[in-house]
């Protein structure tokens, strides 16, 4: 058993309910590595919504709030304002964060509130049986798009960058060391940190998008599809840029802003 499991995982809840070869487990290990690196286990609280990826924090020996579908960010914002001393990790999926909770994502990013959002993007609604999600590539055949998806996929990284999130990164499950480093940076950073992780779903997305059920081959596809670079424009045609796109410490954080306002009001 992984050494980090001793300190971070509730062993009585094992084995995890993820399918064989699911990328969520890799994200789980990377988040544990990041917490170990910072040594901040007692300061961390996790919030999640509904979906496969929202089960990631439920195995941690930490304060965990498993909320409603799409509403992970409102819960997390409330928790941050009530307990500004906590570092809050939010685990959501692509459907949870970009579809049902899209509005909350927009406002949380615009507020620049100190949260670390980890969006596990597997390009499909995995838990409910393989329906099209907002990030599903154009033209892919899924259960709810039998003639090929007609919608343009939403790029959540671009969206939060436009709105002014102050730490933005994207990695894949094939880059676990970089992902853990990014998570540690995001937790340390004061402001809205958004990390998108391209993850493999060998069962649902494997069947309809990648035509491949071997999870390592899907990870290799991710390696081929992506290019590590410092900005979104550098990647070139047909490649998905990965890396840290923004790390800005200048903008004021929402919880501290609120504190100064309330202090002024009280006199």
């Amino acid at each position, binding site marked *: 058993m992984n050494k980090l499991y001793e300190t971070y995982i509730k062993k009585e809840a094992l084995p995890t309910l993820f399918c064989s*070869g*699911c990328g969520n487990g890799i994200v789980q*290990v*990377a988040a544990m590595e990041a917490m170990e690196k910072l040594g901040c286990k007692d300061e961390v609280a996790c919030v999640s919504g509904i979906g496969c990826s929202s089960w990631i924090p439920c195995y941690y020996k930490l304060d965990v709030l498993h909320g409603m579908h799409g509403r992970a960010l409102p819960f997390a914002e409330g928790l941050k304002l009530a307990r500004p001393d906590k570092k809050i990790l939010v685990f959501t999926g692509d459907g949870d964060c970009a579809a049902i909770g899209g509005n909350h994502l927009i406002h949380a990013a615009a507020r620049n509130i100190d949260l670390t959002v980890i969006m596990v993007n597997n390009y499909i609604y995995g838990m409910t049986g393989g329906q099209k999600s907002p990030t599903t590539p154009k033209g892919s055949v899924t259960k709810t798009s039998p003639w090929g998806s007609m919608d343009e996929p939403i790029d959540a990284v671009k969206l939060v960058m436009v709105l002014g999130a102050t730490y933005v990164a994207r990695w894949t499950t094939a880059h676990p060391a970089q992902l853990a480093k990014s998570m540690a940076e995001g937790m340390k950073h004061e402001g809205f940190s958004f990390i998108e992780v391209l993850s493999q779903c060998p069962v649902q997305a494997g069947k309809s998008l990648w035509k491949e059920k071997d*999870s390592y081959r899907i990870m290799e596809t991710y390696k081929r599809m992506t290019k590590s670079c410092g900005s979104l424009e550098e990647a070139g045609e047909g490649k998905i840029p990965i890396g840290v796109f923004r790390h800005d410490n200048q903008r004021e954080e929402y919880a501290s802003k609120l504190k100064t306002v309330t202090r002024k009001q009280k006199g």
Partner: protein
Amino acid sequence: MEITIDKACCKGCGICLKACPKSVFGKSRKRNNYGTAMPEVKNAEKCMACGACERLCPDGAINVERKAKE
């Protein structure tokens, strides 16, 4: 180097077989608690303790104990 694979955690996805740069793991006839095929440590002497298997195992089944050279 001492590599152990937990029978209760492993789900037999086979990521470690391909992720290891030195092909330390190999297929075996052993079964895990799920009843799927479990990998086996075949070339432990080749291991360079890069930690790729530990990080990429989605179920945290692999542990690599790094030992000083004697």
